[in-house]
């Protein structure tokens, strides 16, 4: 449980010496409680205080890293149950499975397909993070051979899944430098699997059918020397899986229950890819650190990755696009020019509609601090001067031969002043972006 400011105050020297830069020890304690200060700022703090505060400061859900380098996946270290309370920090890792008993050609094809699951939408590229290699053959040699192929043939991080510690050891020998996640430890093989993971300093999962057993198993893995543990809560009953995810997250955050203070993984498997992705998305939204699916088509993976992008967006921060002039389609000197704000949701909605109209156009994204048209207008972040500056910065008059600017219908009221300031003809566009295709096809063309 997090310590309150008063709890912390009791552990401080209470000298009000100001050496930490705060007026009193109490003020310092309050800032510590809000995580706005570091204990090391106090030169006189006792060893005992360091110990107590240090333990309390350890994150309730451990951060686990799979892989190495820029592409590594980090999960855990979450602080809240609901994103509006703060935000979710470490986006769920998305894994796609591959079996080691596939024929060579099928295996290579699937790996190639998994590698290509990169999807460009609304200006960013989203991608899966991991390949989960399953030791379906139960054969050590085959598993090791497949692991070698995945390691050499994919840029993605790796999950190795086998119930046999022997097989795991053989496979890990081919790709330990990639720091894969070791999946397959259960109550019958926990120590032997942990020895394999520990030897190569790899993160490891533990699997059990109840949370009680899972907590026991996590303790055993820890005793056996594995630091980075992920709890496997996969199961056949979706309701049970969903409830386990919530129970573990709550136990860690609200009860500071260390034995379950780890991120979670769920393997989702359903014959129907619609059902599989539905469950995977559900688990992703409600606390899974990693989800693994069999689905391997871009149409199935794209919504899953998009759900992740949405839910891990910082709710306090409006997302912005770069304020500049964007050309949609083959925009030329006689193409229409529209402006909107740099709030990404607003911008991409406008861009989507302009694209749908199939009329090439320029969209000027005006810097309003990432707020929508009406919000920006009411807050005076969108006025004739702001637009004029954006037009000048983007050198719009060098891009087109005409002097006509289409403005959002919601701010029709600023057209008079804008016309004066800019010396351009102002055309009032539709109030909603959805009206743009018909506006461009009729009003603009006319």
């Amino acid at each position: 449980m997090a310590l309150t400011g008063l709890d912390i105050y009791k552990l401080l020297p209470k000298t009000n010496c100001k050496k930490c830069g705060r007026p009193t020890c109490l003020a310092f304690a309050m800032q510590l409680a809000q995580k706005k200060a570091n204990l090391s700022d106090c030169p006189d703090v006792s060893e005992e205080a360091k110990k107590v505060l240090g333990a309390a400061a350890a994150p309730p859900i451990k951060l686990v890293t799979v892989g190495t380098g820029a592409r590594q996946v980090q999960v855990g270290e979450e602080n809240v149950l609901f994103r509006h309370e703060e935000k979710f920090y470490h986006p769920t890792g998305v894994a796609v499975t591959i079996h080691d008993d596939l024929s060579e050609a099928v295996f290579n094809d699937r790996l190639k397909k998994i590698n290509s699951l990169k999807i460009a939408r609304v200006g960013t590229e989203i991608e899966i993070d991991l390949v989960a290699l399953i030791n379906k053959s139960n054969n050590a040699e085959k598993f090791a051979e497949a692991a070698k192929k995945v390691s050499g043939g994919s840029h993605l991080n790796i999950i190795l899944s086998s119930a046999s510690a022997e097989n795991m050891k053989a496979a890990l020998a081919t790709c330990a430098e990639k720091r894969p996640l070791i999946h397959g430890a259960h109550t019958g093989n926990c120590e032997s699997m942990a020895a394999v993971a520990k030897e190569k300093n790899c993160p490891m999962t533990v699997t059990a059918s109840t949370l009680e057993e899972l907590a026991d198993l996590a303790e055993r893995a820890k005793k056996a020397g594995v630091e980075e543990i992920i709890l496997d809560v996969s199961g056949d009953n979706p309701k049970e899986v969903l409830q386990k995810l919530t129970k573990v997250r709550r136990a860690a955050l609200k009860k500071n229950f260390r034995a379950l203070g780890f991120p979670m993984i769920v393997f989702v498997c359903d014959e129907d890819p619609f059902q599989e992705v539905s469950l995977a998305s559900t688990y992703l939204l409600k606390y899974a650190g990693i989800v693994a699916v069999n689905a391997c088509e871009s149409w199935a993976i794209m919504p899953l990755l998009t759900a992740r992008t949405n839910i891990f967006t910082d709710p306090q921060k409006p997302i912005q696009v770069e304020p500049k002039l964007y050309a949609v389609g083959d925009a030329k000197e006689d193409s229409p020019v529209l402006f909107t704000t740099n709030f990404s949701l607003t911008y991409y909605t406008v861009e989507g509609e302009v694209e749908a109209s199939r009329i090439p156009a320029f969209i000027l994204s005006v810097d309003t601090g990432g707020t929508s048209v009406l919000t920006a207008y009411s807050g005076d972040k969108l006025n004739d001067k702001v637009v004029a500056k954006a037009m000048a910065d983007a050198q719009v008059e060098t891009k087109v031969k005409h002097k006509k600017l289409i403005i959002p219908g919601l701010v029709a009221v600023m057209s008079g002043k804008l016309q004066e300031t800019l010396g351009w003809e102002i055309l009032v566009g539709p109030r909603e972006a959805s009206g743009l295709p018909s506006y461009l096809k009729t009003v603009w063309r006319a």
Partner: protein
Amino acid sequence: MEIPNVADKWSGSVSEITLGATRDSGGSRQRTITIGGAKSVPFMNFEGNPGHKPVVAMDVYDIPPEDWPETLAKPFADVLNDPAQWAKKCVEQYGADLICLKLEGIHPDKGDKGADHAVKVVKSILAAVGVPLLIWGCEHDEKDNEVMPKVSQAAKGENCLMGVVTQDNYKTLTATCLADGHSLITLAPVDINIAKQVNILVSEMDFPLNRIVMFQSTGALGYGMEYTYSIQERERLAALTGDKMMSMPVICDVGHEAWRTKEAKSDDSEVPQWGPSEERGPIWETITAVSLLQSGVDIIRMNHPRAVATVKKCIDRLY
């Protein structure tokens, strides 16, 4: 090892609403639908009654929709011109729990049809199907205020769910629904404070709180879904902690919003890298729906039969 009990204790609950009226209670519906009643966060029945299962309302339009992509229009190709047959197909073939009639054709820009047309369509649907009915105006204030009262009277006693009222335009429809025994949808686009304000305004007209459903407008997956998600999550928590003005069941408009997105509606030739529209469209609607379900939703408006089937099965498995 013993695990700590993590069940939260909630003092409040989502209010319970029954939609539709059978012959015994003055209507002609073959069955009614009850929603709401949750005393736990969604699907967590270990801490309390999770309430009634979320239901799916399938959209039917009074005029053939103009902008539906081929993938979406195909399953309804034989009925798009006939709202009654369309509703029948949704209920009998696609398992719709409710029908949501969207009165698109009364909008001044989309046909400007009059009350006679709307009343005729409503009556034909009431005659064709036995499920409760949602009736959704065109969201043009003057036109809705002219047409919706007549529609309301024509369906008097059927306990339909009528929408929508906003903080700027609520008096006419609230008064009519009160008189004709219907329930009401209050709309506040992505704003939790206004959501509460509309509920207060409506209740000040003596409209019973247990006949209101809230609508915060819906962001599709990839297009603001998280805004809707967090507002609904906050509303659900407010209801559970006892805020009576926030305890109404929630409705989402998933179908319409999901099928407006580029991901759902683009032709295969435009976006070959995204896969075939036959899969891409329905799954975009599906994942928008299942995502929002986790935030606390009681009625989901949907369109594509495959999305409806997947979401209903998913609800059954999680509930």
